[in-house]
């Protein structure tokens, strides 16, 4: 069996002295798109922040493409092609869309391909091409999310981790973003997505994992996230 591209093993971390993840283990296998679901405040964002190096792991190990990346800085991890698109981001408010995207390819090894990658981002999100000179803080929530994902793509990821990409967006925009993420997956970028909407995950990902109280609770195969499981997750009905 090939080594998973991301392997999180027995991860414990939290804020201050309060643990949030209590020994979470999870793998993203070669070629799959993994979705994470679960109630708010149960550690999904904390997991992403720890994987991408923004938070320190208290114990446990994170391996990416066979390399131990536990304890590396966020910049080092991004350079290796594990790119985190954070939740509800305000980007670089005073910079133009174009500058913001360019900075996504900051590390010298990625700058050379920057222009070509930017054209690809504009092909996926044509609206960003129209707004390329506009400052990020003047963008709408949906456009900002597009820039955030665009910046992630500029980092030329092998694995793109998306934290609630459609948070607070209208159903129409949500559909637009879902299609865009689908197009990104088709280009061969692997994704790990947190979402609150099981339908959204079922359409995009090949496997879903249910996280509760800082642990993996359930592992579902493609499309099997059943209705009564959903009811139980969100309404506590058994």
């Amino acid at each position, binding site marked *: 069996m090939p080594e998973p591209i991301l392997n999180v093993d027995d991860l414990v971390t939290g804020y201050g002295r309060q643990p949030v993840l209590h020994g979470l283990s999870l793998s993203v296998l070669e070629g799959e798109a993994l979705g994470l679901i679960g109630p708010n405040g149960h550690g999904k964002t904390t997991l992403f922040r720890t994987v*991408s*190096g*923004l938070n320190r792991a208290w114990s446990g190990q994170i391996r990416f493409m066979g390399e131990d990346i536990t304890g590396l*800085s*966020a*910049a080092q991890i*991004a*350079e290796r092609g594990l*790119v*985190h*698109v*954070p939740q509800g*981001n*305000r*980007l*670089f*408010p*005073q*910079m133009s869309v174009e*500058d913001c995207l*360019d*900075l*996504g*390819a*900051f*590390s010298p090894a*990625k*700058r050379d391909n920057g222009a070509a990658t930017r054209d690809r981002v504009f092909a996926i999100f044509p609206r960003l091409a129209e707004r390329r000179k506009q400052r990020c803080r003047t963008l709408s929530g949906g456009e900002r999310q597009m820039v955030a994902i665009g*910046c992630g793509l*500029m*980092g030329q990821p092998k694995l793109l981790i998306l934290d609630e990409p459609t948070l607070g967006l209208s159903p129409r925009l949500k559909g637009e973003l879902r299609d865009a993420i689908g197009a990104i997956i088709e280009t061969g970028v692997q994704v790990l997505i947190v979402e609150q909407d099981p339908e959204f995950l079922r359409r995009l990902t090949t496997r879903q994992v249910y996280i509760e109280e800082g642990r993996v609770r359930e592992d579902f195969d493609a499309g099997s996230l059943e209705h009564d499981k959903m009811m139980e997750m969100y309404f506590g009905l058994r």
Partner: protein
Amino acid sequence: MDFADGALSAFRAVFASGLVLSSLYVMIAAGLALVWSTLGIFNFAHGAIMVIGAYVAWTVSIDLGLGQVAGLVAALAASALIGVAVNRLLVQPFLAQPNIILITVMTTLSGAFFLENSALLIWGPRIKQLEKIVDGNVFLAGTAISGHEAVIIVVAPLMMLALWAFLRFSWTGKAIRAVAQNREFAELSGIRPERMYAIAFAISAALAGFAGVMLGAIRFITPTLGADPLIKAMIVVILGGLGSIPGTILGAYLVGFGEAVSTYFLGAYWTQAMMFFVFILILVIRPNGLMGRE
């Protein structure tokens, strides 16, 4: 006609000295503003770094007799190095603290005392002066100013232009602004914030060192030479709207000309008080400074 002549010559004198003062304040305040906008702290050691720059230039160019260019280069290198050290030792260890501004007021202020007293120990209490970069005088609006002062007037805006272009167009400059605007998102983009902080501090300190070399030829160099310009530069930065470069430039010229006008008509004794009065008045009307946001 006597009155008109008097008014005209007064205007000329005020204009020339205002321009020199403004240009000096621009150089000093720009470094302060750069650190403020990147790290959100005030570096109270900025004036002391400026003084060390002047002393190092004196040692290299006059004491060792290696010439002015060597003196300037040594001053820039020394001040940049001290800037990096101040950042590493007095700022970075406290960056995660919630009351970072207050802590760094204390740490950088103690850094300033340390540097001033070191200067006193190393270079002694005897006052020193650098040679002027250019000899002779230049006529500006009918008033004679030294060639050195003319150089200051010309170089200051050019330096601002260079700083602006650096922050706007270079990868490093953009990354510095990115870290200032959203540190975490910058990290996720592959930017190393610690490196950007060090670079911003080095540039800021080198600007201070340059200002010190310029100032050291028109005033006497003492360990506390930096104290007064530092206060003026702080007024400039706050007045201009913290961290905005256009605001800093506007603030510097306002403070410089204001000081010249006030010194001419009210005398040096009242100038400081007058300046703070106007400063407070402006902040009452525009609490975020002249060009500040939000």
